[in-house]
């Protein structure tokens, strides 16, 4: 039976939040550095990338949020059999409130009916926590912070889409994604990373799209057809010329990650979850006995 000390785990969760808010993952930093190298030295795009990288370093060195919009806090938690989801949720909420006190997180939960900010980043559906049971004998917490600017340009299509000449196949999927990124321009803090969900229903399609964003940038899709489409999209979307912040440039997206679900015969949804360049995600593994590791 897996056991943990509540006080220790709460402190470990707070550290996970601090990392997520202030420490941009290495694969993302590497990708931004490569994008900068690809731009002419005195161009606006090159300068913007330089400022982003400086900000990343400052945020890491001083434990300051990279972006003031510390976003929706999205947790994907894998648990061994017998662990109480209710108790883990309570610990996550306590750590969230403490992270606000420490200025790692902004109070970001607004009551949609009264307009009142809850003040501690906790509210209905915030943070968003999803649990899955697995066969391993340790807990894995994946945390992603997704800001409002990029969430606002995320979108969902249903195929066929007559206006875009997009039919019910992967070519149709390709077309609507080009449209989504063109419409987003710099509004979602380009260059973006796309999580794509194909199929499912309205909800599961978006969920699939978001889950893709837990993948690392250099990985390859296990489905060869999707792997090919991810590469094709990455190359062609960067021809749009939107560039960092929409100032123009050769890098409009840093990555495209796709996942597919079965669908109903009548439905064919394509969901685009647009993540900003401040692609904040970290994970933490807690073993029985309290041993912890962060990635």
């Amino acid at each position: 039976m897996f056991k943990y000390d509540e006080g220790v785990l709460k402190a470990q969760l707070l550290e996970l939040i601090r990392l997520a808010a202030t420490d941009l993952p290495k694969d993302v930093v590497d990708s931004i550095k490569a994008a900068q190298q690809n731009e002419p030295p005195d161009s606006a795009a090159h300068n913007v990338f330089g400022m982003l990288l400086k900000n990343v370093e400052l945020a890491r060195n001083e434990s300051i949020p990279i972006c003031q919009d510390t976003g929706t806090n999205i947790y994907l938690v894998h648990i061994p059999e017998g662990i109480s989801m209710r108790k883990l949720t309570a610990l996550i909420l306590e750590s969230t409130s403490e992270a606000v006190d420490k200025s790692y997180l902004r109070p970001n939960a607004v009551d949609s009916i009264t307009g009142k900010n809850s003040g501690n980043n906790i509210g209905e559906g915030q943070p968003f926590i999803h649990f899955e049971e697995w066969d391993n004998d340790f807990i894995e917490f994946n945390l992603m912070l997704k800001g409002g600017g990029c969430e606002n340009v995320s979108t969902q299509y249903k195929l066929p889409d007559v206006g875009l000449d997009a039919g019910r196949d992967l070519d149709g999927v390709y077309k609507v994604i080009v449209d989504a990124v063109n419409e987003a321009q710099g509004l979602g803090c380009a260059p973006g990373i796309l999580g794509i969900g194909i199929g499912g229903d309205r909800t599961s399609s978006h969920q699939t799209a978001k889950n893709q964003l837990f993948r690392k940038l250099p990985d390859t899709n296990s489905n060869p057809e999707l792997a090919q489409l991810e590469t094709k999209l990455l190359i062609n979307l960067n021809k749009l010329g939107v560039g960092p912040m929409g100032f123009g440039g050769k890098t409009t997206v840093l990555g495209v990650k796709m996942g597919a679900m079965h669908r109903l015969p009548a439905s064919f949804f394509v969901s685009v979850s647009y993540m900003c360049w401040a692609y904040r995600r970290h994970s933490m593994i807690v073993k029985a006995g309290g041993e912890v590791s962060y990635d």
Partner: protein
Amino acid sequence: MIKLQLPVSEQAIRELKIGDEIGISGLMVTARDAAHKYIHENWPDWLNPIMENGMIYHCGPVVKQHEDGSWSFVAAGPTTSIREEPYQAAIMEHYKVRAVIGKGGMGEKTLAGLAKSGGVYLHAIGGLAASLAKCVVKVHDVYMLEELGVPEAFWHIEVKDFPAVVTMDSHGGSLHKSIKAKSDEVAKKLIFG
């Protein structure tokens, strides 16, 4: 880099063109979604001295309150500006606001307003929150904190050498329009062949 000290004259603002890099110093005020809605419904007089020949920063900061009750900005990059499109031109004209600072640019209504009342749109870099907070040297005051909450309150701040780029000017120029026109062409080819 063009240095601007606030308050700034309409004439100085009308000289700016898209692409100009600006360093701003002086007093400005943050206002975002709930604040713009509130202004548009109430047109409060207390904002006159804060806004006149000044700038609005579209920003919802992460802040820290010190033991003596004073505040400082911890993280403070721009938020997406287009959500204020319904209100912006009217607010700028009413209070003689000379610039809004945000990200992503704004639409036709604001662009026309900039030409009419003498203003510019200044683009700050999104996600540059740690660096930009360092340019906020003092928090002078905060208004409506209780009603609007930390991200949406009016923060009256003093900045030094705050960096931004003119992406919409008072002559009808918009970098956002020209980039979109070009990417529309590319998108059309990618989609329809």
